[in-house]
């Protein structure tokens, strides 16, 4: 151990991102002053990224129980949900915002790598990926650089790894110009009872590090993720990690093989804070300790310091505790896949982590005091309603001039060319979406991604949703809407929502107005998740998404939802299928344009409340859609979202290039509210004429409103006798707008 004189002071602790009281607490835990290695251990383990110290109080209020839950939030690397027939789905979403802001290609690529490791470390083979991306002003060269880099990074990594990317969202707003959001989602399947656990126990069991060698990349990345982006962070650039999807693919196969072999006690991937995070979390969970010889860790560089080895975030590595006597099984498997597999230590009964290098004890810390739920600090942060909130609520719809019917085509054209509404084809085509023979949307689009689970009749139905503009306008309502929209997308695809994962992207939690947004969002999520019986299985919190000059990003609690589709034939598509089918709007038209893309971008009114939303009515609408689908009365169903009814209509028209003839006069609401408003709980459906009576009877029985709009007809968008656009023209704008902007 280092001599007393060289021991770090509270100043060093501060530089490592620790508070003075945290430094005191560390001394109390150790009963002495920490050395530098120990101090850096605490600094990363007690960072927000690893400890959730500023968020856990509120996260604990979220519902996490359901009979389907096999691993609850926080217990394992990802949530695990029983999907029936002896199968379970592991799924999770995670952010890689700050690394992507600095080096978009590698930042996004390693984000994809990390989330997939979370899935396969549980023994699940990933079958589908989604991502949720938010960028700033798309006309700025830096934003284009970020978009191109992030998309290529996700594509190159995911494509080589060999798991399809089947959907996602891309959203642009000035608030993300400095700090883009890159959230990656992955879902995998395993057989119930075959899951691996992130645990360590059994004195004498060997501890292995497997996969890539450890380099100096990403050291301090965990602390780095917990600081504002400022001028200074450019100096930390070596913190970028490089991803190697080829290694990840090998690691996937080897990991699944070793778990299947039955020699594994516990396994955890190395994400943030590398070796120290996996050794401490596994040990704390299993109530054991470890003795680790850092000299045995395969390294890419000579003479790495203990803290560098412990904190390195080199990618594509796992920590595995193997049952004593079965070491050779493990070694043979990793040898087959040309991967490192080195024993670096053993499990002890001390509940302490003792790290040695060249025979010398370099750190000695209690495992439990490092981790969430153990000794890691927990803070109640102050929160305060921001001044803007009241102002937003004062919005008066009458201050905006309504759209005249003759201008509907003009607004439609504007929206088709808006990057938030236009097709994301430019992005999606860079992702392999067909590998795995499982993507059921390739030839039949639905609101949510429908992915076949091989070896069963089932599909999983997955989606990522969050309209952050709504959350900004009203965190509680906005976040409830995000959950509701995710559920609606799943129901409109024929699925039954079962659980969510969340990625909570917010600003600096030490700013009370930002923390107020966080608290509100959690309250809204709780309310909605309880209503839909979709517990939260885990996820990740990303604070400090802001820059010193531009304030925080919109509060963005991205919801990743999992649904199940039991019978293949119940899959619902969003597209009109035949001329003559009847088009209905299910749900209520409301005189509301609040926070719509139309109001925000076309009318340029930035301050308004979140759109009209009634959770109980939303449940009713979803129930109605589900029942109509079970009775096979729907030809298509498409959720009304950005751009409202008009955008939903043309989106349903595009795949088959089938037009519509709609008569909607004497409206009970304003024109703009009817056509472009984003009031929630509405679904556009098409129905066979012969099913008209049955369809209406079910809705009447459930007391769900509906409005007959017209029929699927021709190749034009025809409203009240006037062609406002041909479907082809609208489609060309929609199809090419984003590409044109990016290549401009």
């Amino acid at each position, binding site marked *: 151990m280092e001599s007393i004189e060289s021991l770090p002071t509270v100043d060093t602790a501060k530089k490592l991102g620790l508070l003075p009281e945290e430094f005191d607490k560390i001394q109390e835990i150790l009963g002495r002053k920490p050395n530098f290695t120990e101090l850096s251990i605490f600094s990363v383990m007690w960072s927000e990224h690893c400890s959730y110290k500023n968020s856990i109080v509120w996260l604990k209020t979220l519902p996490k129980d359901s009979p389907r839950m096999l691993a609850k939030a926080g217990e394992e690397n990802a949530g695990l949900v029983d999907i029936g027939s002896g199968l379970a789905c592991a799924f999770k979403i995670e952010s890689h915002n700050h690394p992507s802001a600095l080096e978009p290609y590698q930042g996004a690529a390693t984000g994809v790598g990390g989330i997939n490791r979370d899935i396969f470390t549980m023994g699940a083979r990933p079958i589908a990926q989604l991502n949720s991306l938010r960028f700033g002003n798309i006309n700025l060269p830096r934003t284009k650089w970020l978009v191109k880099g992030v998309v290529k990074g996700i594509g190159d990594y995911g*494509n*080589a790894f*060999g798991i399809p990317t089947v959907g996602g969202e891309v959203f642009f707003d000035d608030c993300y110009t400095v700090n883009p959001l890159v959230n990656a989602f992955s879902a995998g399947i395993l057989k119930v009872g075959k899951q691996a656990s992130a645990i360590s126990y059994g004195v004498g069991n060997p501890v292995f590090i497997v996969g890539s060698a450890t380099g100096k990349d990403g050291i301090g990345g965990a602390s780095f993720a917990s600081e504002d982006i400022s001028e200074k962070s450019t100096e930390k650039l070596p913190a970028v990690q490089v991803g190697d*999807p*080829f290694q990840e693919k090998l690691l996937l196969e080897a990991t699944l093989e070793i778990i299947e072999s039955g020699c594994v006690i516990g396994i955890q991937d190395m994400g943030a804070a590398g070796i120290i995070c996996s050794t401490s979390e596994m040990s704390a969970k299993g109530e054991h300790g470890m003795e680790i010889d850092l000299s045995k860790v395969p390294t890419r560089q000579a003479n790495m310091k203990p803290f560098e080895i412990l904190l390195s975030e080199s990618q594509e590595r796992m920590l595995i505790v193997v049952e004593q006597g079965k070491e050779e099984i493990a070694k043979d498997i990793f040898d087959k896949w040309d991967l490192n597999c080195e024993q670096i230590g053993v499990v002890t009964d001390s509940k302490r982590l003792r790290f040695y290098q060249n025979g010398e004890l370099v750190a000695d810390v209690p495992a439990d005091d490092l981790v969430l739920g153990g000794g890691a600090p927990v803070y109640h942060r102050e929160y305060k309603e921001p001044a803007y909130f009241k102002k937003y609520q004062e919005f008066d719809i009458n201050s905006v001039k309504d759209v005249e019917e003759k201008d509907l085509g003009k607004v439609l054209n504007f929206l088709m060319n808006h990057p938030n509404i236009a097709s994301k084809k430019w992005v999606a085509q*860079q992702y392999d979406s067909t590998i795995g*023979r499982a993507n059921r949307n390739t030839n039949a689009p639905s609101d949510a991604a429908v992915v076949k689970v091989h070896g069963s009749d089932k599909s999983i139905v997955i989606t990522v949703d969050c309209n952050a503009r709504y959350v900004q306008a009203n965190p509680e309502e906005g976040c409830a809407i995000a959950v509701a929209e995710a559920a609606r997308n799943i129901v409109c695809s024929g699925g039954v929502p079962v659980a969510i994962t969340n990625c909570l992207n917010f600003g600096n939690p030490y700013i009370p107005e930002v923390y107020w947004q966080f608290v509100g969002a959690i309250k809204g999520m709780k309310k909605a998740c309880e209503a839909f019986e979709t517990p939260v299985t885990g996820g990740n919190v990303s604070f400090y998404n802001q820059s010193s000059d531009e304030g925080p990003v919109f509060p963005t609690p991205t919801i990743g939802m999992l649904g199940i589709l039991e019978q293949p034939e119940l899959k619902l598509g969003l597209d009109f299928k035949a001329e003559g089918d009847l088009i209905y709007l299910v749900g209520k038209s409301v005189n509301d344009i609040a926070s719509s893309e139309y109001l925000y971008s076309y009318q340029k009114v930035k301050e308004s409340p979140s759109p009209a939303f009634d959770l109980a009515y939303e449940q009713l609408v979803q129930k109605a859609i589900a029942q109509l689908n079970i009775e096979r009365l729907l030809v298509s169903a498409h959720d009304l979202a950005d751009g409202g009814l008009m955008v939903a209509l043309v989106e349903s028209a595009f795949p088959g290039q089938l037009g519509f003839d709609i008569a909607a006069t004497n409206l009970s609401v304003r024109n703009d509210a009817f056509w472009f408003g984003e009031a929630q709980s509405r679904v556009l459906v098409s129905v066979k004429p012969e099913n008209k009576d049955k369809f209406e009877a079910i809705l009447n029985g459930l007391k769900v409103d509906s409005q007959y709009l017209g029929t699927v007809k021709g190749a034009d968008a025809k409203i009240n006798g006037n062609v406002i656009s041909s479907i082809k023209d609208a489609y060309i704008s929609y199809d090419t707008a984003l590409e044109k902007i990016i290549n401009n």
Partner: protein
Amino acid sequence: MKFGVVVFPGSNCDDDTVGVIESLGHQAVKLWHKQTSLENCDFIIVPGGFSYGDYLRSGAIARFSPIMENVIKHANEGGYLMGICNGFQVLVEAHLLPGVLLRNNSQKFISKNIYLKTGTQNSLLTQALDANKAYKVPIAHAEGRYFADEKTIQTLKDNDQILFYYCDENGNINENSNPNGSLENIAGICNAQRNVFGMMPHPERAADIALNNVDGLEILKSIVNC
């Protein structure tokens, strides 16, 4: 017919390929790249993926894997061999098929449905296909731009070695229906002896009624129904 699907480190369409062959009622075994035996397989498939991460050049490192010696021998002795996507790149690197596969002219990875028209019915792979039909099959590659010198292209034509052209949904073969800049819209070829096949599109990904597209299955059926 017994199929062998070669698995390199980084192959990722091996499961898909095995799955589809089995769905056709035929046996398919995986052949690990470190082994040398072809396990008496009649038809060898080099599947898609990113063998060795596609580092250096697609297919360049895989081509020297231990199993490749016997795969090449198998082909030279007239055994059936097919490369799909990355597998096509490997067979080209191994000089079992003429030409090269360059980076797409968009310089980007492209994942989408394209349409294929057969260039000849005179091959195991296309014998059962409809010459007038445009087959819808996905592509997913960054390096699929088929290129060869004029003489080679002429030879391919003279010998009727062009199996597939990229076309539009109506069967038109033109610049607009060329997704990656391949010379003459070439999407798949065979060797002069007609036992080695290579194609960039993934027929195995369009072979399931649950995915609403079985055009690829027809191509694979052409092999087994001989």
